[in-house]
């Protein structure tokens, strides 16, 4: 299929349709509303379910209901809306039914603003709802990845009966790039042995997140952790740039990852041996490759559009093996390549130390700009 110039949000919506999305429930919020608008037109014309819910709380619980029937179902929102969905997300996780959630992140906390941000990393990656659970989180940096990861999110959610997030941001969502959409997949009736839909001639089925006996809930928790380890073993994805001879490593996901790419190229032109690792699955986190890289680089710079959230996962992976530096732009500010470039140059020329909390020095630099 030919490439077309397509907006990130529209691309995710259409990709979901072509991946066999049977039901969508959502609520308008900037900067993701194009997802809802595209599906508002397309789903009914295909005879598929679309409801503009009364709130994100209702939307995620509609998703929960449809997910229990085993269809491909999705919602989309942006940061404040996803906060409202945390209740339903925890129930979906606890019931072990597959569902896809698109979060086009914006600046926060609170009402914040509608500019691109990455400050929902903790919430999505480490589970913002109550209880122990382990969502799959895919972070696109481009429109093509928005398409590919939306399709993948359905496959992974179903394969593991797990929550799958597409963690985008206002920049990737609003951006247009040439990209190729997949062909239309037929809707496949899956007849899962867990889905509800009227018992017919089989035994009745119950889908619930209740395990009133704590020992049963413990067993359910252990089973979910087992599933998670399976996911971690099989599904780690990332992209490497200029890493073969790198002496310094930059790590960034989504938009900050692609901004860092521009900076890394500029530094390469200046002869600095720096490379970039861009996690595509931020959960499962690509910690093994980071541990390997930490063995051979002199310093690591983590770049994010937040106060340093993925930074924690990098620090857990690397430990005290190598100095870690942080550069973040929270609140809806997108860093420019020049900002990251000068951070790389600072890292290369400074006498780096291994510190407990790289945010302290970063905050000091930010406050004394």
């Amino acid at each position: 299929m030919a490439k077309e110039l397509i907006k990130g949000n529209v691309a995710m919506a259409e990709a979901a349709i072509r991946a066999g999305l049977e039901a969508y429930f959502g609520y308008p919020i900037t900067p993701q509303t194009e997802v809802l608008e595209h599906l508002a037109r397309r789903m009914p014309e295909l005879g598929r379910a679309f409801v503009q819910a009364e709130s994100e709380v209702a939307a995620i619980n509609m998703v929960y209901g449809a997910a229990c029937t085993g269809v491909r179902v999705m919602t989309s929102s942006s940061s404040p809306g996803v906060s409202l969905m945390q209740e339903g997300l925890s129930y979906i996780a606890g019931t072990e039914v597959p569902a896809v959630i698109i979060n086009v992140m914006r600046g926060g906390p609170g009402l914040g603003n509608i500019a691109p941000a990455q400050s929902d990393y903790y919430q999505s990656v480490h589970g913002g709802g109550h209880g122990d659970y382990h969502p799959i989180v895919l972070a696109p940096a481009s429109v093509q990845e928005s398409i590919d990861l939306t399709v993948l999110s359905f496959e992974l959610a179903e394969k593991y009966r797990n929550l799958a997030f597409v963690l985008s941001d206002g920049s990737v969502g609003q951006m247009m790039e040439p990209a190729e959409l997949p062909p239309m997949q037929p809707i496949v009736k899956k007849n899962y042995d867990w889905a509800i839909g009227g018992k017919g001639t089989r035994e009745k089925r119950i889908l619930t997140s209740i395990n009133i006996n704590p020992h049963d809930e413990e067993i359910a928790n252990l089973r979910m952790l087992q599933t998670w380890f399976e996911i971690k073993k099989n599904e780690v994805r990332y992209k490497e740039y200029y890493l073969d001879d790198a002496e310094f490593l930059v790590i960034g996901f989504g938009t900050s990852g692609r901004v860092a790419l521009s900076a890394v190229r500029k530094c390469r032109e200046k002869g600095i041996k720096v490379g970039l690792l861009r996690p595509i699955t931020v959960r499962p986190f690509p910690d093994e490759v980071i541990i390997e890289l930490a063995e051979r680089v002199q310093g690591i710079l983590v770049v994010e559009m937040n106060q340093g959230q993925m930074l924690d996962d990098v620090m857990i992976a690397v430990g005290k093996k190598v100095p870690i530096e942080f550069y973040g732009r929270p609140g809806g500010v997108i860093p420019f390549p020049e900002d990251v470039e000068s951070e790389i140059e600072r890292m290369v020329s400074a006498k780096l130390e291994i510190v407990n909390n790289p945010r302290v020095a970063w905050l000091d630099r930010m406050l004394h700009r």
Partner: protein
Amino acid sequence: MVTIIKPENIVYSRSHAFTETSTSYCPGCTHGTAHRLIAETLEEMNLVDKTIGVAPVGCSVFAYNYFDTDFVEAAHGRAPAMATGIKRVLPDKCVFTYQGDGDLASIGMAEIMHAAVRGENISVIFLNNAIYGMTGGQMAPTSLPGQKTTSSPLGRDVELQGFPLRMSEMIAKMDGAGYVVRRSLHDPANIRKAKKAIRTAFETQMHGLGFSMVELLSTCPTNWGMNPVDSCKWVEDQMLPVYPLGDFKVSESVSELRF
């Protein structure tokens, strides 16, 4: 011990729409009555194989164990949203929610109103016993003025704690609602009327005539601190004046249903 040997002598038996599981309800509570009316209706309408129930949070949280149909368990108040999700992808199936007053009229107010106004083709069985049962007798949005509960120990003071909510009257105003009635479970005559209403609600859904809800005035002997007989009397004397029984919405198409 009398042994019944002739089937024609059987005047009462367990509905086939029930599982063998015993309920966890307190003695004298009318949840069991409501369950039985639903089970009999599903059986009579031959819907057991194609029904999906949505259980609430509250005393009836384990309703899914008692009916021999597929069931899901919703978050507190979200049963109408979850039922919407199911019904939209399985429009030919029978989808009902079973909700108490805390679930439906307090935390789930938005979900029930919007399900009704969208005309979601689901049936809602709403048990109103004017108190929170599962958490141990707190004030409900439907508690009566002056009613003593553990969170209104001096009696519900309407100046401070507001007035009881009449859900059926409110929902009847929604254009998407096809059938909204209030019945009571406090005596046999009313129970029979309640059964008829539940049947009408499911018929409404199966004929695609929009949102249907049956509010059932119910007892909570345990948390009201009364014996079951006095509880039924309390429904009649205290609840009926605040919650009059009646048909608040019967759309023209529903009124033409014959079954």
